[in-house]
């Protein structure tokens, strides 16, 4: 069944989808472990979420409802074009509401609205290897994963604390999954890391250029690396959202004029608008 003639459902051919699903099943079976897959050419350049798109295309069905966010927003060019793409090649419904989506493809954020069982969060991943800055040799990083030999990552955290007094990683903060594999959460803010821990939704990660897939099954333990005496602390700007007043959400800084004026607003546009709508309704 195809929404637009000339496309197979979900764009990818059935063999490719089967191959990706096999990689996904393996990834779910070994939480946090990077599984290689034969990444296909997509009608988008790398860096536009080709890994996430292939994952979404392999798990999406006609009954799904898709939400796509980029930095928390549904209305950026990237998010809009991916949403349109799936509306065209899969004929699925789309939504901007986190609560109404069955699949959410994301770049750089986890929605503020808590996810629930049955939902799938698909991350676009530029660099799946959490050790690549510390150990450039790919064979050696594989060996480190195989042996769970992650002392080097702690050396990096140690160096940060020695130099800056705290761990100076605000995005892509490394996590241990299920007490076994070190994993890159993709460039989400460290603020979002705790949302991964024991999340009821299925979390899937696709890296197109690097040809890797990994996963965090529902309710899996996901811990941000830290020291006992320097525990992980998710940071956010010390402000309320200028639009909805939230003091819990992750904020973007917006410059309002050329005189240095700036405000903070929620990065998650659905969350912010829903709160505003509720506030208006209450008035």
């Amino acid at each position, binding site marked *: 069944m195809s929404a637009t003639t000339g496309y197979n459902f979900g764009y990818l051919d059935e063999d490719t989808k089967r191959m990706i699903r096999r990689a996904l099943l393996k990834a779910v079976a070994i939480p946090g472990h990077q599984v290689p897959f034969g990444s296909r050419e997509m009608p988008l350049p790398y860096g536009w979420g080709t890994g996430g798109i292939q994952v979404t295309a392999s798990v999406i069905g006609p009954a799904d409802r898709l939400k796509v966010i980029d930095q928390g927003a549904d209305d950026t060019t990237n998010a809009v074009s991916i949403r349109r793409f799936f509306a065209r090649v899969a004929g699925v419904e789309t939504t901007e509401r986190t609560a109404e989506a069955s699949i959410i493809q994301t770049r750089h954020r986890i929605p503020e609205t808590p996810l629930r069982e049955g939902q799938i969060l698909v991350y676009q991943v530029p660099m799946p290897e959490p050790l690549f800055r510390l150990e450039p040799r790919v064979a050696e990083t594989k*060996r480190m994963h*195989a*042996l769970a*030999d992650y*002392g*080097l990552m*702690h*050396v990096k955290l*140690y*160096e940060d*604390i*020695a*130099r800056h007094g705290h761990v100076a990683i605000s995005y892509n903060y490394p996590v241990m999954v299920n007490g076994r594999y070190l994993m890159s959460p993709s460039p989400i803010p460290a603020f979002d890391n705790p949302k991964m821990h024991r999340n009821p939704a299925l979390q899937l990660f696709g890296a197109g250029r690097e040809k890797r897939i990994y996963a965090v099954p529902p309710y899996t333990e996901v811990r941000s690396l*830290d*020291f*006992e*005496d*320097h525990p992980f602390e998710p940071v956010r700007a010390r402000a309320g959202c200028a639009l909805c007043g939230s003091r819990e959400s992750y904020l973007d800084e917006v410059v309002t004029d050329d005189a240095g004026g700036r405000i903070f607003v929620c990065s998650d546009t659905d969350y912010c608008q829903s709160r505003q709508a509720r506030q208006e309704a209450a008035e």
Partner: protein
Amino acid sequence: MSAPGMNAPLLEASDLALRYGAVPALDGVSLAIWPGEVVAIVGESGSGKTTLLRVLSGLLPPDAGSVLYRDPEGTAQRLEAMGEAALRRLHRTDWGFVHQNPRDGLRLGVSAGGNIGERLMATGARHYGSIREAATAWLRRVEIDPARIDALPRTFSGGMQQRLQIARTLVTHPRLVFMDEPTGGLDVSVQARLLDLIRALVADLGLAVLLVTHDIAAARLLAHRILVMRHGRVVEEGLTDRVLDDPQHAYTQLLVASVLAA
């Protein structure tokens, strides 16, 4: 000097052989080292010293022969049957390796404290304050000003780098340390200071050391026993004073004479 007596060797190798093409780098080498014992391996360039150290420490599999390691519980294990994960663990707990070139044994882009802390973190230490305390104590112990704890090793002199490498290696209290020309490439006065430090640490910690060196004087200062290698074979072996004062093999006589002449 006599080695502290314990009844079972830490490491025992028998009939090791390894060829590089036509070159027999090791040719029927057997040796044993006991807890707390310092054994020097001397011999001319190309005689197989580094190769022997690499085979004994499991970094290089031999063509023939076997290496037996005795763990702290007293259980003997064959190195070749140990598996990579166990060998790695061994290398950062019960064993240490000090390289001639500090670049091979240090992370030059990581602070002195981070270099010392790495083995602790790799073996599960997760308390920053304790790691720093251990690093500070070890810097002091190897005579580096603890105020340099956050400095990068590339700002250190060659002698300091070598002392840092030793601190980084000893922080997990290994029982056996492999050293490949630890004083090579250093000025004579710096060498002397480093040898004194190694001697003090060996005595304090009861370390067993397999020391590869060109330097007969270093061997005399540190070693209980000496092995003389030539063309991949051990041509003479014995207590240090006996080998140096009364060498039996013609090659050893030449070696000792050339040092005396120099």
